[in-house]
């Protein structure tokens, strides 16, 4: 059944492989995926190790519902100590890797040590082999996957791999699977690189027995009909996340020229409609009807004829407005290159945008940038910097170190311009008019991020009744809520609720787009509970799933605290408080975050979590969540 998948401990230094079952008790406490990953990380990693040393522990996993009849049950989770932030490293991706890992018999891989020479793992129906990867070391992520499939003579093998950026230990190198999917954030690719691990290839033909097949089919169909009937789904099916840009830019919620403006004058050049002449359709991840992955062909220039997938909303900012560019082909080429090199598109674009503001302000000059004119709107400079970062050449070597270390190299005066939290750059979104979104990026466990807790539906001005229906369950909440996204009232609860929702989703292994993220009508805790029961037989009530999420999130907090995190790390860059937004709709223009109100909101957020005023979980909450004895070393 879906619960009999195993855990494998792989020591790359000694070559030892140990395979064990996963106790039901741990399933009930953490489900799987991201939840069980943080348990394993907390139990297996010594505090304070260098994230790029052989002592770091890499976790690769599938959520507990992956491969089953839960909607888009496709997600792979990757975790380790982050070489970018020094806190929790955690990244989640779609595609077809995780279902294949389960069909091959495994749910969790715990990878330790460092291989002497480049290797890849070959996992096939319960067996794991460490194979030589010297011939593919240096290859991009597309060629790597083709080469492994050729070597194994099997087109159906699914592969997770790194590109040259991961090999060069770029601190925000990602892991990739297929043409489109990336475990983008927190530098998990660099951890693979530091272990000389080029890829993990999986293939399996083992049953995942569905507990109640007829019921599971019926419930899945019901949810699919619910999802596909939403406007959100219909728009995503056509444009993917690129559709978001027009709305957020019109309102004034995007970063332009790093953080100088909050609206792009030439946005129509890079809005979703401009993909049309390059688009060759859309693709879906495993079991997904939203199929938001764009497929495109670059039409002109030196990349003419190149097929690629994407770009997402993130890349529209990263190689568009954030760096002051207005050329769709720059976005398409940039997206293709970061995917091939295995770089996080978001971090790459944000750091280039930061460097451009430094250059325009004279804080860095041609001498620092190897002569590259890092001016906003210089398309060639953007593309050139992508190459240099991935190869760690010249100034690229500075940016490849990520925000905190790059600030250290460039100098203190550069710090003010860098839009990061906990050492990870922010999305190209401007949260000065949206306190709930601001609180989300300030508190997210892996650093500034929109996929940890963003209450995106706060932007819809939903009626209070609907907000109550969503945010006052499955745990009780009788505090205030507000439909106004500029408000500070009740926003801490919205952030906490979304945090628990996304954590639950990451433990289950389904996609966030099928839940209450961008549409209020999609799956929630009750649906998670039903999916779990019909597919696995595990009967876990909605409020207990919340508790699992709370436990896993709190353990991430404990992990971060063990690595030195304090309250001051849950804070925004000064510019959010000091510089009002210059553009946007009237209700957005002139907005900045109020320090006092933000502090109060942060206090509320801690209180909702049962953390003290320093953001440290109290003994009481640890006991309630059965975390008081961690690490327990059950696995």
């Amino acid at each position, binding site marked *: 059944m879906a619960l009999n998948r195993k855990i494998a401990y792989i020591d790359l230094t000694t070559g030892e492989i140990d395979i064990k079952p996963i106790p039901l008790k741990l399933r009930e406490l953490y489900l799987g995926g991201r939840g069980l990953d943080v348990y394993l990380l907390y139990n297996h990693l010594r505090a304070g190790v260098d994230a790029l040393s052989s002592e770091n522990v890499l976790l690769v996993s599938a959520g507990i519902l992956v491969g089953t*009849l839960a909607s888009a049950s496709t997600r792979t989770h990757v975790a380790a100590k982050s070489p970018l932030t020094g806190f929790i490293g955690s990244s989640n991706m779609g595609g077809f890797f995780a279902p294949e890992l389960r069909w091959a018999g495994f749910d969790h891989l715990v990878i330790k040590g460092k291989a002497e020479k480049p290797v890849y793992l070959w996992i096939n129906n319960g067996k794991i082999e460490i194979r030589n990867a010297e011939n593919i070391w240096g290859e991009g992520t597309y060629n790597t996957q083709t080469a492994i499939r050729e070597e194994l003579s099997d087109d159906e093998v699914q592969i997770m791999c790194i590109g040259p950026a991961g090999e060069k230990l770029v601190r925000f190198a990602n892991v990739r699977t297929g043409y489109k999917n990336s475990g983008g954030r927190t530098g998990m690719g660099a951890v693979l690189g530091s272990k000389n691990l080029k890829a993990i290839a999986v293939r399996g*033909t083992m*049953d995942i*027995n*569905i507990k109640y*097949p007829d019921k599971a*089919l019926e419930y899945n*169909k019901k949810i699919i009909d619910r999802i596909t009937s939403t406007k959100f789904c219909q728009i995503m099916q056509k444009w993917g996340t690129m559709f978001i840009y027009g709305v957020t830019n019109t309102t004034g919620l995007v970063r332009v020229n790093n953080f100088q403006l909050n609206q792009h004058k030439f946005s129509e050049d890079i809005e979703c409609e401009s993909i049309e002449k390059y688009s060759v359709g859309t*693709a879906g991840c495993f*079991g997904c009807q939203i199929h938001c992955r764009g497929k495109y062909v670059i039409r002109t220039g030196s990349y003419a004829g190149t097929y690629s997938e994407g770009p997402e909303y993130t890349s529209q900012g990263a190689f568009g407005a954030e760096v002051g560019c207005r050329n769709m082909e720059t976005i398409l080429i940039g997206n293709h290159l970061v995917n091939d090199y295995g770089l996080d598109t978001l971090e790459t674009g944000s750091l280039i945008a930061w460097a451009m503001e430094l250059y325009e302000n004279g804080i860095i000059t041609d001498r620092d940038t190897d002569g590259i004119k890092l001016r906003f709107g210089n398309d060639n400079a953007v593309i050139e910097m992508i190459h240099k970062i991935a190869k760690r050449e010249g100034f690229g070597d500075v940016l490849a170190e990520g925000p905190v270390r790059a600030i250290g190299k460039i100098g203190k005066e550069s710090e003010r311009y860098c839009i990061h939290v906990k050492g990870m750059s922010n999305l190209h979104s401007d949260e000065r008019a949206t306190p709930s979104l601001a609180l989300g990026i300030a508190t997210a466990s892996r650093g500034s991020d929109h996929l940890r807790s963003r209450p995106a539906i706060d932007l819809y001005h939903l009626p209070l009744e609907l907000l109550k229906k969503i945010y006052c369950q499955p745990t009780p909440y009788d505090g205030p809520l507000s439909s106004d996204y500029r408000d500070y009232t009740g926003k801490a609860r919205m952030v906490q609720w979304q945090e628990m929702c996304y954590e639950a989703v990451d433990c289950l292994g389904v996609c966030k787009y099928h839940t209450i993220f961008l549409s209020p009508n999609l799956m929630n805790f009750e649906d998670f509970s039903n999916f779990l029961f019909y597919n696995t037989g595990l009967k876990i009530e909605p409020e207990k799933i919340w508790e699992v999420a709370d436990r896993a999130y709190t353990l991430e907090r404990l992990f971060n605290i063990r690595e030195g995190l304090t309250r001051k790390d849950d804070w925004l860059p000064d510019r959010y408080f000091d510089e009002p937004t210059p553009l946007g709709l009237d209700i957005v223009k002139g907005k900045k975050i109020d320090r006092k109100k933000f502090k109060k909101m942060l206090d509320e957020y801690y209180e909702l979590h049962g953390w003290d005023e320093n953001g440290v979980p109290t003994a009481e909450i640890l006991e309630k969540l059965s975390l008081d004895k961690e690490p327990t070393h059950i696995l």
Partner: protein
Amino acid sequence: MAKMIVVDHIKCTGCRNCELVCSVRNTGASNPSRARINVIKWESEGFYFPMLCQQCQNPACMAVCPKDAISKDDNLGRVVIDYNLCIGCQLCVAACPFGCMSVDTVENRVIKCELCDGDPECVKFCDSKAIDYIEADIVTLKKKRAAIEKFSELMKRLA
């Protein structure tokens, strides 16, 4: 008139939900290697094609079966296996030009799409309608209409 499965590969998003629901419906387990349908992909070109039994007029599998275990069911327009007669020689697997007579390695027997007795699960779950199950005459009429649509529009403009 019997219905038939129609594949429109342009609409296929490659999500493989058809493989999932097919294997669950027919085996109770999620396992694409036991599905009667498989999406064949050329990933580097973004080209996907769902492959399943074509329910041939003159089935090669039926022709080579030494025990006459494979027959046509004109009522549902399908080719079916009688497992009481099948000896598992797998000559049908060798004969099928499409690879759509497969082997279920768990139950150790040959398997093929039998249209879920007239209510194909894959079709129900294919939201993009890359696979459909419709009357055979309508299939070709629809294709005729689509093929000539440009011409018809041109005529309207000239009129």
